């Protein structure tokens, strides 16, 4: 088995308001191995972005890791100074942000922002860096790279910004790439080219990728393993095929059922009933219990913890065994 490069254990992240504080992410843990693509899917607002920012130690001022550990190649990250983190960021761990347009500095050209990333970590000349940047732009399928190189972010389309962010993240061949919805603004052809590119790089450099996405199609194409998050907790984690073919957790099953396929011909699409409970009135037990079709009394009171239903397939549900056995009826 290949080496674990990123290990997150018992991670809890809390936001402090003026008077109150609430846990946006609670007690989550996962591992990312070398050369692996770990997909994270989950409910919008479940804490995916926050988790990935926590890995890079980039939480906003009003948020903090209150518990748990994040280790990179065995090194605990949470204790690192800002200086040491700076060295890791970009080179060892890179990130593609969800809102690509706002994540680019509006007053510098796209080109200078890519070269900056390169020059921060590598001691090469400006010209070389520019050449590299142009190559990167081309590799992310940007037409007319020289023009885009000299453009400012606001002159680009949403998809172009997104690809620029990808180029920046890839610029220093990091060991871990955290990609927060990297292809939402890309059309299918470009998307598949980008995914191919990621896979290719990953194969060549055995980079580990943490791929956050809502597109189960993308997951099915590239991910090795998948984590499903709901309301700040991990509901289920497993290999891609296992998860897509044999989802256990009711939330995962709900998600997969909600998936819109080309041949879906429903007037009203399926979606999981109900809404995410309020952070304040979060049930003591399983967080999905308020919406779960299979809910039992116990679910509301106790936290189910993690149950392994098969090797590598972890589920946070009291009824997982019944479900696997097909005993639980919705």
């Amino acid at each position, binding site marked *: 088995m290949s080496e674990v490069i990123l290990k997150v254990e018992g991670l809890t992240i809390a936001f402090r308001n003026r008077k109150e504080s609430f846990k946006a992410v609670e007690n989550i843990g996962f591992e990312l191995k070398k050369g692996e693509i770990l997909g994270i*899917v*989950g*409910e*919008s*607002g479940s804490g*995916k*972005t926050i988790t990935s920012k926590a890995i890079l130690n980039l939480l906003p001022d009003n948020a903090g890791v209150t518990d748990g550990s994040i280790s990179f190649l065995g090194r605990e990250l949470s204790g690192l100074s800002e200086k040491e983190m700076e060295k890791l960021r970009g080179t060892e761990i890179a990130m593609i942000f*969800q*809102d*690509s347009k*706002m994540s680019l500095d509006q007053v510098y050209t796209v080109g200078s922002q890519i070269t900056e990333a390169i020059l921060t970590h590598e001691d090469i000349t400006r010209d070389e860096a520019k050449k590299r940047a142009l190559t990167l732009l081309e590799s992310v*399928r940007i*037409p*007319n790279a020289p*023009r885009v190189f*000299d*453009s400012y972010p606001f*002159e*680009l*389309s*949403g*998809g*172009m*910004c997104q690809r620029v962010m990808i180029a920046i993240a890839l610029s220093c061949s990091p060991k871990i790439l955290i990609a*927060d*919805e990297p292809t*939402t*603004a*890309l*059309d*299918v*052809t*470009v*998307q*598949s080219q980008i995914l191919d590119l990621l896979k290719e790089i990953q194969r060549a450099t055995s980079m580990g990728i943490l791929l956050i996405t*809502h*597109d189960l*199609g*993308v997951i*099915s*194409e590239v991910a090795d393993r998948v984590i499903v998050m709901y309301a700040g907790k991990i509901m289920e984690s497993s290999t891609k095929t296992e998860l897509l073919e044999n989802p256990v957790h009711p939330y995962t099953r*709900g*998600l997969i059922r*909600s*998936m*819109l*396929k*080309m041949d*879906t011909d429903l*007037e*009203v*699409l*399926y*979606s*999981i009933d109900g*809404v*995410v409970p*309020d*952070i*304040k009135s979060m049930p003591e037990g399983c967080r999905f219990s308020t919406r779960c079709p299979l809910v039992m009394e116990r679910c509301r009171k106790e936290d189910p913890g993690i149950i392994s239903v098969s090797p590598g397939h972890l589920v946070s549900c009291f009824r997982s065994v019944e479900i696997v056995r097909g005993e639980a009826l919705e």
Partner: protein
Amino acid sequence: MSEVLYEIDNLTKYFKIRPKLFSGEKKVIHAVDKVSFSILKGETFGLVGESGCGKSTLSRTILRLEKADSGSVLYKGTDILSMDQKELRSHRKKLRMVFQQPYDSLNPRESVKDIISAPLRLHTQMGSQEREKEVLRLMDLVGLSARYINRYPHEFSGGQRQRIGIARAIAADPELIICDEPVSALDVSIQSQVLNLLKGIQKEFGLTYMFISHNLAVVKHMSDRIGVMYLGKLIEIAPKGSLYLRPLHPYTQLLMSAIPEVKVKNPSGYRPITGELPNPSDPPKGCRLCGRCPYEFERCRESSPELKEVEPGHLVACFLHPGKEETSNG
């Protein structure tokens, strides 16, 4: 046939770019190039196309957020592009847009309540309590907890921001909503919920949508008719059934075949398109697809094909598909 709401005729938008501040070298980007189509009342007009082909620009130009270089946008017969500020303002009462990058479109200094109630304040006679109730209702519709009502945009996740944008767009009974990637950041369950919502209110209030998305399944689900853009040009317009079943333009065919989940369903054995999207500031002289098109012949390189109706309601701009009249003549 139902009433034409918008008649877009030869709409053109060029961006001038100045690569360097002091160099006189001027280039233009043909972001929207002589685009003509119409949107019928109560329908959903889908718009797909390669990233950077001008979809966002087209919608912004229709809204007069960008000044068109030429062409006209007729709303029930009156040209929007020549309206004065006052007329425009009253016209905009009926218009909404869901922006592609949600965060950028939310005023950082307004709370969610202010943001969503803006159209209510403008276009309805509601009192402030009523308004608050309505805001809460809208938030609930898009799956946002009522507790968030006083939060500011930066305190939300990507998907939540997108939902704020949608809630604002459906407030105060609009007539047309231009949705630019409205569900890209949403998990599939909420995505379904939102799509159901959009369809629901369309049915209820006879809303019209222009729906831009890269997710072809979503577009298919939502749209009645779909337009395909390539490099600033509209190359194919068809009712969704006909477009998905029998795409005529080589580029559309490519697009269809690249849908991730729809594995190798290649009924007519399309030849794949190769190569990159050409430079939008220096597009090919003839057909925009020249250089990439497997069927390319002499004429394609010399003149650019016009949109022609080849089947009832199915228009395509390709010399392979001469229009109805031409066929009958020739």
